[in-house]
């Protein structure tokens, strides 16, 4: 059998961490090959080795049977492989057009900006990405940025493309467009490696799948005939049941309320009330304003009009500390941006909101901090060397769990989580959704903003937003089709 790409017995260590321990993968010519595994299994590390960003400590990489080019020869790598990295490689201070054609603005000689913009617009049009090519990439939403990265990677004309969790930040229609594109590339004979924590996507788009666990290769099999449970079993090393949303009866007390909230360009005249023991979903397609609304509830944004009440306390608009003091916990949309301080430890990141309660006279007792962190690491099953490891060194999903830990650390009575399971593996997803439900069972009320319909299943009701307004309050028991129709504005 001829493999288009092969990695053999790759070992990669980061200090004491072994990210890859003799892992191998072999991808056949022209197939779309899934790589799955729990957070921290070593997937992204393999990606950086397959794209020549990092050297492997041991082992080898082959392209079409030939040894990989030297690390310094970036052009040779770029001819062989294009990649959407998990971590953004967008340069915020440059325009979208320039980001799309970075380091290939011209074949030589003077850059013709007008032509470049036209090419960029054309490229984005083929993906139906509606952004101004002259906007600065830093001004785009997380989702738009991701689309730009995907468009860029696919535009190289490389015969091998790696997509590391491209859909973690995309909503349904965008994912559909991506898949359509991937199918047509496959018809042209392009080989792809696809990483995702959404296993149904793996079944939808891939032909075979490789599972990594604990830095090792576990199994490679065709997707057909590999049952969902078997796959999850291979990833986790144990039998895992699908997540069952729990039934509850919400209380009467309103723990989180917004009245008459408006923010120009984002949302208008929104009222909402979350009761104790209730999970309220917030759904909507791109630009519906759901994230902006959620960020207003937690104080990250200041509304033009309206008030937010947490636990009966009217919080100062646009003031996070006053919302936290009133008993709120939240998970922001972008963990890299607002979620964690990369150089600080897991323990420290998780306990910032309760730093005042971990010692007397303004001190923070390191032992109490560590004890609290160890408990959170246990609860949320965070894979880390210990509470002292900097969060910047964790894998994406584990960093997300740390952000979650920070939201839960003060036992909040109101919880706002935005795309909480972005980039989180199946089992961790259950842990995180379980953590939300646990908090709610302890009497909290929660708002869950998500593009992922699976996440929304834990909600007691889902508020659907469209063009900045709440258009419908959908009670539990909806089908995917119904909800999507409302989100697209097709049915009211």
């Amino acid at each position, binding site marked *: 059998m001829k493999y288009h790409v092969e990695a053999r017995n790759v070992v990669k260590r980061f200090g004491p961490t072994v990210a890859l321990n003799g892992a191998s993968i072999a991808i056949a010519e022209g197939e779309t090959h899934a790589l799955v595994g729990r957070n921290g299994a070593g997937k992204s590390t393999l990606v950086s080795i397959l794209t020549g960003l990092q050297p492997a400590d041991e082992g080898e990489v082959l392209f079409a049977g030939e040894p990989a080019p030297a690390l310094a020869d970036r052009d040779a790598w770029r001819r062989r492989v294009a990649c959407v990295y998990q971590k953004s490689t967008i340069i915020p201070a440059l325009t979208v057009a320039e980001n799309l054609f970075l380091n290939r603005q011209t074949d030589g000689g003077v850059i013709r900006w007008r032509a470049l913009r036209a090419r960029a617009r054309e490229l984005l049009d083929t993906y139906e990405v509606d952004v101004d090519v002259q906007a600065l990439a830093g001004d785009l939403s997380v989702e738009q940025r991701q689309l730009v990265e995907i468009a860029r990677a696919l535009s190289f004309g490389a015969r091998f493309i790696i997509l590391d969790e491209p859909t973690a930040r995309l909503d349904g229609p965008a994912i559909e467009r991506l898949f359509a594109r991937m199918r047509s590339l496959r018809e042209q004979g392009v080989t792809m490696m696809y990483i995702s924590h959404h296993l149904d996507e793996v079944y939808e788009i891939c032909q075979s799948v490789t599972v990594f666990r604990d830095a090792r290769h576990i199994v490679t099999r065709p997707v057909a005939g590999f049952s969902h449970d078997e796959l999850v079993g291979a990833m986790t090393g144990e039998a895992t049941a699908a997540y069952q949303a729990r039934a509850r009866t919400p209380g009467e007390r309103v723990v989180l309320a917004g009245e008459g909230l408006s923010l120009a360009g984002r949302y208008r005249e929104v009222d909402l009330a979350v009761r104790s023991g209730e999970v309220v979903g917030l759904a909507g397609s791109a630009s519906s304003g759901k994230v902006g609304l959620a960020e207003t509830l937690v104080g990250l944004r200041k509304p033009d009009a309206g008030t937010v009440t947490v636990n009966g306390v009217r919080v100062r608009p646009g003031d996070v500390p006053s919302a936290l003091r009133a008993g709120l916990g939240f998970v922001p949309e972008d963990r890299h941006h607002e979620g964690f301080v990369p*150089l600080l430890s897991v323990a*420290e990141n998780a306990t*910032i909101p309760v730093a005042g309660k971990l010692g007397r006279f*303004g*001190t923070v007792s390191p032992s109490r901090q560590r004890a609290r962190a160890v408990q959170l690491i246990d609860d949320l099953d965070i894979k880390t060397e210990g509470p002292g490891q900097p969060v910047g060194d964790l894998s994406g999903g584990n960093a997300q769990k740390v952000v979650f830990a920070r939201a839960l650390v003060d036992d909040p009575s109101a919880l706002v989580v935005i795309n909480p399971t972005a980039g989180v593996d199946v089992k961790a997803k259950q842990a995180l959704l379980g953590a939300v439900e646990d908090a709610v069972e302890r009497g909290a009320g929660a708002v869950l903003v998500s593009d992922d319909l699976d996440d929304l299943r834990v909600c007691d009701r889902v508020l659907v937003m469209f063009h900045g307004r709440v258009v419908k309050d959908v009670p539990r028991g909806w089908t995917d089709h119904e909800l999507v129709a409302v989100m697209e504005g097709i049915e009211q």
Partner: protein
Amino acid sequence: MTTLTASPAPRVRLARFRDLTLVPVILILLVVGAFLDPTFLTSGNLTNVLQQQAAISLLVLAEAMILISGKFDLSLESTVGMAPAIAVMMVIPASAGGFGLGLPGSLVIPLCLLVGAAIGAFNGFLIIKFQLSAFIVTLAMLIIVHGLQLGPTQGKTLFELPDSILYLGSAVWLGLPASIWIAGVLFAAGIAGLAYFRIGRALYAIGGNIDAARAAGIRVNRVLWGVFILGGTLAALAGVLETGRLGAIGSNQGVGWIFMVFAAAVIGGVSMDGGKGTILGALTGVLVIGLVQNILTLKGVSGFWQPVVYGAIILVALIISRIAGGKAQD
């Protein structure tokens, strides 16, 4: 449970060592110094080194905190001369070059610290409220504050000073100059404050990711403002110590210090990008610089070549601490 708590221990110790990458450099300097000059290792000489570095070390302490919180303050060096000069002029009679306000001489130190705090507050105001670049605001303030000393004093040295401002910089407590005690206590407070206090940890969070710090409920603006005010106050106190050591306030007091302050902080492991470094590390940086200067003075290296030797030693210290620390710097 035991495995979890047991494993991090070595890491912590390693992390602590990372702040102390200059310790080998200090040891080498001590050995080399002792070898080059018999006076060097005498307690008298080492006390002199510490006393000479006391004032500048307070600036390093201030700058380290400001850098850790991700900001920048160049104007500290001008405060060293201006704050005591203005404070003194408020209390001495017009005949001795003062404003003739007739305030009591005992007020001079509080006034001086107040002036320093006010400069810090003004810096903070422009940088935080107006969202201006810290580098350029404090660069302009470096020039302005120095001008605010030159203008009123007409460039003259103030040498008729109230005793109260001379005391701290020249007194000896328990056999050691008071300025060493003061710097020592403040550094101890800084080390503890940044390691074990909520407010100190907040500086790291702000410097490491200001948005995350804000989202975690830290009152970022308030903390940053406080740091600038504290920085200005420490610079004014450094001015008090320096004034006592020199017995007068020259119009150039503090001028040119800021480069050495940054050098000490950065070779001591404090990052210019914020969120990284410790006060203890900054202290080792101060010591390295003080020892190098002392050795060069003792050896009487020609004034022309002194900068070359001096700069080369800083580079070597940097390389040693890079190798000992094992991480790329920024």
